[in-house]
């Protein structure tokens, strides 16, 4: 398996997609930039929700560790658990790339089911975050997503790929101030999470 290959798309729409991890619990961090491809278009998105649950909706996990000393022992004593649980993450689409140009708006078509999802390299993150136009899509992520948490997590993740993290975050803060206008409480909520 390729190093940065996280999983594949199992549900898809214009604004986002859900991917299942190949390995249980190998979830990408909240707010990280990931990509999938529908050649010739590459679709970019940020991880906005993640979780682990039973593969079958009717079978809920039960507590098993009463007599075990460590969590790892539960999995050794019940090896089937690795196959009966799955980790999934939800991605909010924030842009795409076609013919080498990055666009910070929605792609023409949604991701395909079973398309591979990869974590973006620091170079790709740098290229994508040259403009903050994607912030608008993030700010409108919808009621299912904790928007302030998502925006700040995304900017923090992106800053790690920059040579000058501080100037990147300062620039992002200025962009947010313009975007949020008089919404001081929301702006404060994001800025305090960028520190």
């Amino acid at each position, binding site marked *: 398996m390729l190093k940065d290959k996280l999983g594949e798309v199992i549900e898809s729409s214009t604004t986002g997609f859900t991917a299942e991890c190949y390995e249980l619990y190998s979830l990408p961090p909240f707010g990280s930039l990931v990509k999938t491809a529908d050649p010739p278009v590459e679709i970019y998105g940020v991880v906005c929700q993640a979780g682990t649950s039973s593969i079958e909706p009717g079978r809920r996990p*039960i507590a098993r560790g009463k007599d075990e000393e460590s969590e790892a022992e539960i999995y*050794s*004593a*019940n*090896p*089937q*658990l690795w*196959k*009966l649980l799955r980790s999934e993450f939800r991605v909010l689409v924030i842009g795409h790339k076609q013919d080498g140009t990055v666009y910070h708006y929605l792609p023409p078509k949604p991701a395909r089911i079973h398309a591979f999802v990869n974590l973006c390299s620091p170079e790709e993150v740098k290229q994508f975050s040259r403009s903050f136009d994607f912030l608008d899509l993030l700010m409108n992520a919808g009621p299912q997503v904790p928007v302030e948490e998502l925006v700040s997590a995304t900017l923090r993740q992106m800053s790690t790929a920059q040579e000058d993290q501080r100037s990147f975050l300062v620039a992002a803060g200025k962009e947010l101030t313009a975007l949020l206008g008089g919404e001081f409480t929301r702006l404060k909520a994001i800025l305090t999470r960028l520190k």
Partner: protein
Amino acid sequence: MSLDLSKVIDQITDMVTRLKTGRNERLERINSAVATLRNQSEGLDALKKKIALSRGKTTWLVAEPVEKLDIRHSLPPIPPDFTVLATDGSHIDVDRHHAAHCFLINIGAVALRYGSKPDAILENQPVMYSEDSDLMIASPDKLREVPIEGNLLGMKRSVEECKRLAEMAASIPVGSLALGIMDGTLILWNLEAYPEFVTETLLEKGYLVHLEEIRKLNADRKIALASYISFPRSTDVVNALRVALCPQEFVDSDKCPACATRECYGISGVRDRDLFAGILTPGERSALFISPSKIQRHYGKHLVHFFYLKLNEETARVEIPRWVAQDNERLELVHALLVDQCERGQGYPVALSEAHEKAVVTGADRENFWRLVDESLVEKHLPLAESEKSRSKRTRWL
């Protein structure tokens, strides 16, 4: 119109009252059976002789004891590294109301490895049968044919479960320690109702061949085999006690109506599981017995033996072939690993319950299967003849 439960509730209440009144009498019978088992455990040879003399003269099945009747085997140690294999199946039967004549068998197979390198394989393989040769069993002279459906399809499924188990057993590394488990009985006794050539096809050239494959794998690895029956209804051992209690030299069911003393009446109706629940403590297994079913004449070196296993939640019946019963190491492996599997599986062997989960075909799956078959026929412009009864069930009208 759904079932009108308000019309059934009184009948349920009556049944519950009846069961409650009969409870004390049932407990007395169980106690009496337990006492009989203990009393009879000394004269084993005499009992075996009496059972042999009664063979074929009773209308009920009588187990043949192998060990002292009331012996209790405590839980053997559990090895550090082992694998548990299990298969289970489900099927979609032939539906004569549909245009296409076919059936489907879905086999769920599970391999769970415990110890230093824990791992799990959970898989299933649905196979559809639609060729004429798949749907019928023909006699060697081709003059007679028996369609595979209903009970016979159930037995065909057992053969496929055993085949898959043998394949899985062959794929585990040389030197491994493993237990293969199947659900239900190892005795395909339903075959007695069919002509001999059916038994030859399904049992001698099918089931027993796969059991033999598993046995032969023991040359370079240790594989025990068992089938697990939860909440068993059998009474073979209690019937052996009835033979013991009979005042005659041997039992002849034809003469029972004329019997005035009816010594055996005090324990009739007791199930083996109730008997052994009163004798064993959790983790222990009972003595070994040989199942008396007529079909066993075909089993040879796989002659089915059985014992009862007391678990925390229930007393289960475990069936094993002779080559496991006569090898103490493999027998102990069956005993230890089944108890361990039940502990890991909240009272039922976890490998079997996962194999069942992989095999299960729901009502919705059945509908989807037939819809897919019908749509595929339509796509190729084949006539979609279907019975009016089937159509009327799907398109309800007022």
